[in-house]
């Protein structure tokens, strides 16, 4: 497989291709007839997925360097470039994105009934935006992607959302905007501080990363700005209140994307930027205590609040707060296991919570309600649905053998050596998770089928099986055989740990001088 990929020069064009294909697709969708929009979009998303799938084989798991790099001058006067690349940390974020998109489009098939053309076009634009966040290696470019994908999401929630969509969208937008603008200031300060010290003014991620030692006293404040931006996106307690509203009001595909991919951007931001840029601050005992405390509070708090939600989507939303708390704990513990675990949870959460939102959407399509109390006993009429929902729910609470366990286990076991008490408290999250998920399952699936409206519910259709099937396969696959994923992440995760803990620029340590991409691009200029 990798030989074939090499023969077609896959590594050279893959990132260019996956960035541009959705945009072209969006154009075609907009111009084509509205009735065909979803078919075209699905086709485009599948092409995109197939294109990106080659990364699995083409990715070299032996190096922590960026791979498949793309470099174009953009605004050379300011040292801004269109610079993309993938390493072990971003690889699965990219694959997750391209994997979720076809499913999401398929999942919106009947849910979206009006203005289909614009909807699917926005979904495709969103794809590019999200991928851009994960592969950008230029801070300016990263920021642009980071913000720009707000817009499609904003429209998806605002135009196709529920009754309180306007409130939800503006909350979602302003929260994110607030955090990211402060990050913008921080990026600029870094640019100038590093530029003055090194004489080279550049927004290049690598350049800034290799010169973080010059940040000195600035580091604390810069970290604060990055932290705020990412913490809101994650979302960490107490910055999470946009999430339930956005999730509840968003249409099914919106919720899926929001939970599945957008939330990962915050965690990814910590892994890629906030922690490596400011290792001293991130590891500072006070800062670490605060972050770990917030993470643990988030785990417990999210679970407890989920316990009392009458609305199924809100319940899932709060459960996300809890899950992402594990991710944050793992990131801050900063051991190989915990980082890997955090990345696995990020993947898992995309799959499991995505599936939960799909199923919440399917319930809504059938009954036009999301209130848990309106259901009950439907396992009798929709056995397949019940089976899948049970499996997904179990994966969400980390039953061993499902993907959820692998992530939580790795995070906790990795974090335990660093923060035993916090980890112990976080581990109680597995109990609370069982409480809220099982309570929901019971109220929805079990009990008496006493609501006549539920008696006529249709079981999963073939299309819905196609949506959920791949997710279920992933749940079991990652649960039982996550090793291929872990191996691909390992070197990059190890490099991150070494770099942050050792305060050494990772590239300088890992590879000989002539292979350093910065030098390579220096020749281009």
């Amino acid at each position, binding site marked *: 497989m990798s030989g074939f990929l090499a023969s077609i020069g896959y590594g050279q064009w893959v990132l260019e291709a996956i960035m541009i294909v959705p945009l072209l697709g969006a154009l075609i969708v907009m111009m084509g007839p509205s009735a065909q929009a979803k078919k075209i979009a699905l086709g485009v998303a599948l092409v995109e997925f197939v294109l990106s799938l080659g990364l699995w084989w083409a990715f070299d798991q032996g190096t922590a360097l960026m791979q498949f790099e793309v470099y174009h001058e953009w605004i050379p006067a300011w040292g801004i470039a269109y610079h993309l690349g993938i390493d072990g940390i971003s690889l699965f974020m990219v694959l997750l994105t391209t994997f979720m998109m076809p499913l999401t489009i398929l999942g919106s098939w009947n849910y979206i009934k009006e203005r289909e053309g614009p909807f699917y076009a926005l979904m495709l634009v969103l794809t590019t935006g999200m991928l851009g966040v994960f592969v950008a290696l230029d801070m300016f470019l990263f920021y642009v992607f980071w913000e720009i994908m707000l817009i499609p999401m904003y429209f998806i929630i605002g135009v196709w959302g529920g009754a309180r969509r306007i409130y939800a969208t503006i*909350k979602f937008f302003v*929260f994110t905007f607030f955090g990211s603008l402060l990050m913008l200031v921080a990026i600029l300060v870094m640019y100038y501080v590093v530029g003055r010290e090194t004489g080279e003014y550049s927004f290049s991620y690598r350049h800034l990363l290799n010169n973080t030692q010059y940040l000195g006293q600035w580091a604390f404040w810069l970290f604060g700005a990055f932290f705020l931006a990412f913490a809101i996106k994650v979302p960490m307690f*107490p910055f*999470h*209140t946009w999430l339930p509203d956005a999730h509840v009001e968003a249409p099914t595909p919106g919720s899926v994307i929001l939970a599945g991919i957008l939330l990962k951007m915050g965690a990814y931001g910590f892994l890629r930027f906030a922690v490596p840029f400011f290792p001293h601050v991130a590891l500072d005992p006070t800062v670490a205590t605060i972050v770990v405390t917030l993470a643990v509070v988030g785990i417990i*708090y999210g679970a*407890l*609040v989920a*316990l*009392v*939600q009458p609305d199924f989507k809100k319940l899932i939303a709060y459960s996300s707060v809890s899950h992402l708390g594990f991710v944050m704990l793992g990131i801050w513990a900063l*051991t*190989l*296991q915990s980082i*890997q*675990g955090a990345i696995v949870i990020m993947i898992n959460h995309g799959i499991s919570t995505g599936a939960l939102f799909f199923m919440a959407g399917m319930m809504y399509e059938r009954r036009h309600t999301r209130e848990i109390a309106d259901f009950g*006993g439907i*396992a*009798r009429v929709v*056995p*397949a649905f019940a*089976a899948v929902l049970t499996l997904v729910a*179990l994966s969400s609470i980390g*039953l*061993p*053998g499902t993907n959820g*366990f*692998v992530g939580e*286990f*790795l995070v*906790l*076991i*990795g974090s*335990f*050596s660093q923060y*035993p008490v916090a*980890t*112990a408290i976080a*581990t*109680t999250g*597995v*109990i609370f998770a*069982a*409480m809220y998920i*099982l*309570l929901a399952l*019971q109220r929805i*699936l*079990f*009990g*008496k*089928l006493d609501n006549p409206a539920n008696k006529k519910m249709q079981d999963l259709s073939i299309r819905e099986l196609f949506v959920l099937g791949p997710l279920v396969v992933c749940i079991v696959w990652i649960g*039982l*055989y*996550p*090793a291929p994923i*872990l*191996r691909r992440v*390992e070197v990059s995760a*190890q490099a991150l740990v070494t770099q942050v803990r050792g305060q050494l620029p990772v590239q300088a340590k890992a590879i000989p001088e002539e292979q350093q991409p910065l030098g390579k691009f220096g020749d281009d200029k």
Partner: protein
Amino acid sequence: MIWLAVLLPFLGFLVNGWLSFFRPDAKRAVSVIGVGVLVASFISALAGVVGLAGAVHDAPYIVHMWSWMPVGELQVDLAFQVDELSAVMLMVVTGVGALIHVFSVGYMREDRSYPRYFAYLNLFVFFMLVLILGANFPVLFIGWEGVGLCSYLLIGFWFDDEAKATAGKKAFIMNRIGDFGLLLAMFMIFRAVGSLDFLEVFDAAPAAFVTNGPEITLITLLLFLGCIGKSAQIPLYTWLPDAMAGPTPVSALIHAATMVTAGVYLIARTNILFAMAPVSGAVVALVGAVTALFAATIALKQWDIKKVLAYSTVSQLGFMFVAVGVGAYAAGIFHLVTHAFFKALLFLGAGSVIHVMHHAYHHTHSGEDAQDMRNMGGLRKFMPWTAAVMWVATLAIAGVPGLSGFFSKDQILAEAFARGQGAFLFYVIWALGAVAALLTAFYMTRLMLYTFHGPNRTGEAEAKQLHEAPWVMTGPLVVLAAGSALGGFLNLPHVLPGAGWLEHWLKPVTEGSVPYLSEAHLSAGLEWRLMGLATLIAAAGMIAAWYFLKPDRLGAAKAAPAEAGVQRVLLNNYYVDELYNTLIVRPTDWVSRKVLWRIIDMGAIDGAVVHGAAKVSRLLGWIGTRFQTGNLGTYVVLFVIGVLFVLSAVAG
């Protein structure tokens, strides 16, 4: 061969699961597959065990499947470990499991979700096998939680009944509390040893831990927390009586013979760790003894036939924990095996009774409780086989000499008594156990008397419908009865010829802990005397029951007067469920709803900060526009203020 034993039930699950969706009426195929995979699994397991017994080996036989979680120094493989301990468990699980599967064919015959039932049951056996065969803690944990899942699914098998679904949920959550301990124990072990493989951990333990040090004590206590949840010990025992909501064969298999004994298995498996932490051992034994007595008292006053057996199970599990707590691992496993026989038999017998009772009530459309002993009575006339085999089991559990329960229970009490020379605590534990044994004999006799003896209280019309269960149900009962009677010969006391076969068999597993255990040896005389005492206890309990209880005078359930005083407290399980509800469940709900969600989330964060900021912004804007009066005079005044402001800013 071993992997085949594991794989077959899983295939059974897949096929039966498939059938449950697409061919729900293909009961014959389901029966063949469901039972067939278990029998095949038993045979292949037997072959494996025979191979193990015949092989010359000094290390357990490990089957590596694939690398599961390879992350740096954490290398977790999906691997199975076959050694003497897992062999014993393997035989119990597949053997008793197969019998219960056969029984289920008859018991569940008329259920509309027949394929689903067998799918779950097969899945349970699969997970149970993973549990006992796992070569490291995480793989064990797959099985550990997997059986919990199946338990959940099977307790709530008739999920239309809200109460049954709730019981399943309760079981799962209580188990999870225990799992929390197990997880933390794993983390601590990994931090100390750097591995989670059983062999590596046990090899490294003597060097990695200080005997009786805080770390090992904490680890073992956390492990024990896991066991408490899984094996329904105080304080997490309340789920097990509720778990009787599931079909009775499920109670027999999961909640008596196999899953609930996983805690005992885990301690036996990690015997080195527990041996290094004597404090934990004492705690285990004490908790076990207290649970044994406590549950036995509750069992005295239950009317539901399955509830009696459920509390009896809790009590018997307490005995096993006494054994593993005092370091008599073989004795614990021995009781585990014998208990699997007689308790499975009791449950299946009760199932038989319930089946018939239910049938009768169903026939006459009566709403009476088919499980209430007050509605039974005199059933031995209708179901002679069932009555006979259940008497065998009753005598076994009561501790009548010669039967399996006598030997295993006596061994536990003897071991505890022997440790009493070192610490007085163990005499207390022994005494608690002895009283529990007395009560056991009493409540089991009570159960038999009320169910099978005296006049029939079922009702005129219903009595005509009562009959013996079909052979698929009685057949397994007979086999189990043989096991209950003869199981004791696996591990006869030291004073008898051919003694200690099981203990010897388990030697390779437990010998690592020997250096850490205090020497406890009873003289032959004392051992004989203890045996005699045990016989007396059993006899006293049964005679007391015979003497005090008058089945002839008992009325049917609907005519029964309300209980009062101590009896009511016992009937209601000392109100422990109510206590948990008041102290934990409702406060959690209240705090989550009122404090966390309403006050913090919606009030403080959203209301005060988020909406507050928005409102303040709007208010400030509104105030700003109040100056925009449209009147030039105002504008000029502000202009001049601005002038002063700028000039002062420049000057300053």
